């Protein structure tokens, strides 16, 4: 079976995020007040062939650790499900 999977990569807590900080500073100028703790990250969408949902998640977690994130500075989380990216 093929499962739609989304992997989200964000900077670990305590790692400076100049991109998130810059976005946060820009928001009040656009009228969006009260937005704090902005952290920039990346998300990856893919189809994973696996016997069941658990196996798909395991594979996604492994590839997220090995390639999609740098564990020195980033965390990666994987979840199974169509998150609206247009999974086939």
């Amino acid at each position, binding site marked *: 079976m093929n499962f739609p999977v989304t992997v989200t990569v964000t900077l670990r807590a305590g*790692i*400076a995020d*100049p*991109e998130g900080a*810059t976005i946060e500073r820009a928001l009040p100028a656009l009228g969006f007040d009260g937005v704090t703790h902005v952290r920039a990250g990346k998300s990856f969408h893919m189809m994973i062939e696996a016997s069941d949902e658990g196996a798909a998640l395991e594979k996604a977690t492994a590839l997220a650790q090995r*390639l*999609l994130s*740098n564990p*020195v*500075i980033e965390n990666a989380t994987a979840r199974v499900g169509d998150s609206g990216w247009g999974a086939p």
Partner: protein
Amino acid sequence: MTKIGVVIFPGSNCEYDALTAMTSLGADADFIWHSTDTIEGYDGIILPGGFAHGDYLRPGALARFSPVMSAIAQFAKAGGAVLGICNGFQVLTEAGLLPGALQKNRGLTFLCQPTTLIVASTRSVLTRAASKDQELSIPINHFSGAYTCDDATYEQLIENDQVVLRYKENPNGSRDDIAGVSNVEGNVVGLMPHPERAMSTLLGSADGRILLEGFLRAPVSAS
């Protein structure tokens, strides 16, 4: 004659500068394509600057899986001298051959400017011809050059004398002004500044020669 291999990944762009710097110092140097899986007959390896594999995902993230990297890891483990400049430094951290990581610059701007570096350790293959606390004028040219690591790694760096070079004035937000680090043994070194672009006073500075002459000094393995 000392023989140096300069690795080319798809997207490297400082390989000719590195090669020319080496030959101008009297070394024999040639290129190594990234898909090569063995490296033999070299005294030292340079990973040059550029945008290996487009810097897609993260700088160095995909280059780490190029076949040549396994050979370089073995070469390094055997004590061979390995130097990563700019993108090459990013590749070495992604490959786990050097500790820490390089993040986007603090100001989110691409920095291309001369910097003054301070030699923090003369134990490494890159700084062994320099003096401790010596100031060197070497340019930087990067977007992701802010050196970062966790506290435990930082303590190890200090304890093992692995911080090789620091910026006199921190341009990019690097932790503790770090511009370059080595592995514990000192035979693998990475730095964001470009010594190969500081080879002639006509072009601004010849201080890169002090570093690269040290890199070529026999025996090539770390003392």
